[in-house]
């Protein structure tokens, strides 16, 4: 198609990026899945448990973000037919919602 911009990346290095994302996700996931101390919080037990779940859910969102971004980057690195525009589109879900682009 005329007007298409060629995607210029080093696929091997892009795969390294993907690996970095997935490793970061694994590392943080390991901490979340590890031994979390149980607090005998008495009258505040319910709210302490809710706070713990809150920060763990937020941390899990970081894990999942790394997983999603890593997965997308790996897919891009392995597909030599993609154009620059198509790859930009792959990240648009992130950009549009939170960057207002």
């Amino acid at each position: 198609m005329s007007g298409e911009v060629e995607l210029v990346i080093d696929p091997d290095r892009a795969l390294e990026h993907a690996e970095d994302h997935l490793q970061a996700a694994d590392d943080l996931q390991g901490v979340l899945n590890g031994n979390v101390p149980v607090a005998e919080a008495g009258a505040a037990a319910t709210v302490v448990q809710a706070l713990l779940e809150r920060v763990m859910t937020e941390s899990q969102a970081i894990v999942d973000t790394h997983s999603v971004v890593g997965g997308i980057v790996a897919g891009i690195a392995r597909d030599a037919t993609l154009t620059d525009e198509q790859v930009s589109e792959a990240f648009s879900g992130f950009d549009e919602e939170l960057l207002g682009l």
Partner: protein
Amino acid sequence: MSCLDLRIPGDPDHVSVTELAVWLDSTLQAAVGDAAQIFDSVRDFSMDHWQSWSGESYRNVLVLGRNAGWEVEQMVADTAEKLHSYAGQLERLQGHLDDHRDAADAGGLTVTGTVVDAPVNPLGYVPDTDDPRYPDYSEHLDRVDLYNGISTDVGTRLGDLEVWVTEHLERFLAGLEPSAAVRLLEDLSADEGDVVGLYVDAEEARWRIRLPELQAQADDMRTRADQALAQIRAQNGQVGDAIDQVRVRHLGHGGVRLQTWVDDAAEVVRAVPVVGQGIGWILTAAGLAQGDDVGATAVEIVVGGVAGAAALSLVGAAAFGVGATIAIPAAAVVLVGGGAAWIYEEAVPQQVREEIDSGWRDFVADGWEWLNTPL
């Protein structure tokens, strides 16, 4: 017969609360910080081989991820500080209860373990002042005064703890905003659910499997604490009266509402089988928080008193070295006013501030330890 159990209701262990706080501010906070750093380092490395529009789009996402990581890292740190503070509250309260037990024993009250029995008139009647056994009765009245004083103080302190939990834990939870990472995944799930489903394996988050068990444990702990408190109230009306006075003075009906919110949030969590969808309850909690008009009294740091002097000492020490604090005149403490209160709250961790408020004895031990911690 009236009696008083000088244990924290539900017997919460401040050591285990501290352990959780330490796990948060060391292990989890560091892990989240590392994950945020990876976004940054990948961004730097991508610049020399991935240009054009798509490269910029990728790097925009990496900045989002890094910022979200920093947000969560701060949230974990703030939560840890709250739990450290709660552990300090429990430790100090139990210390006061222990002191009361010693005073009760020294004052002639019958103490069995942690339980203090109400004094009983040894005469079985009220003597006239010229009665030869009146001195015995007078000693009994002293014991009654001691018992009543202890009961009222215990009730006030239990009420204060309840207020503290509402003001500092429940209010903190209700005020937490969802991080950018949570909003991002929520948006992606809504708009492009297949993208999230493709790359996120929900079963990897095995910590979610334990949630129902942990929630049940928490419910059980709270129930036991509530039952223990109800028993104390039943055994000693003065304790209950003092607790109620503190409640009305500080919480009114707002405290009840906040607790209800926490219960609601916990109910939502229970209803969510997969935590990938647990994002929803966070948004629910945040939405509840927006209606926050709680009439509870905020904890204010009074500049000019012990706390104010300590504030400037701490800030001065942090800025100029410990020796410089000696030169700060007392008048300056008053003149600095609200600005000092702000600096105080910004510069001094909550746990240390509370220890300062609780008295110089705790401050000397823990405040100096904080000062000697590298900034």
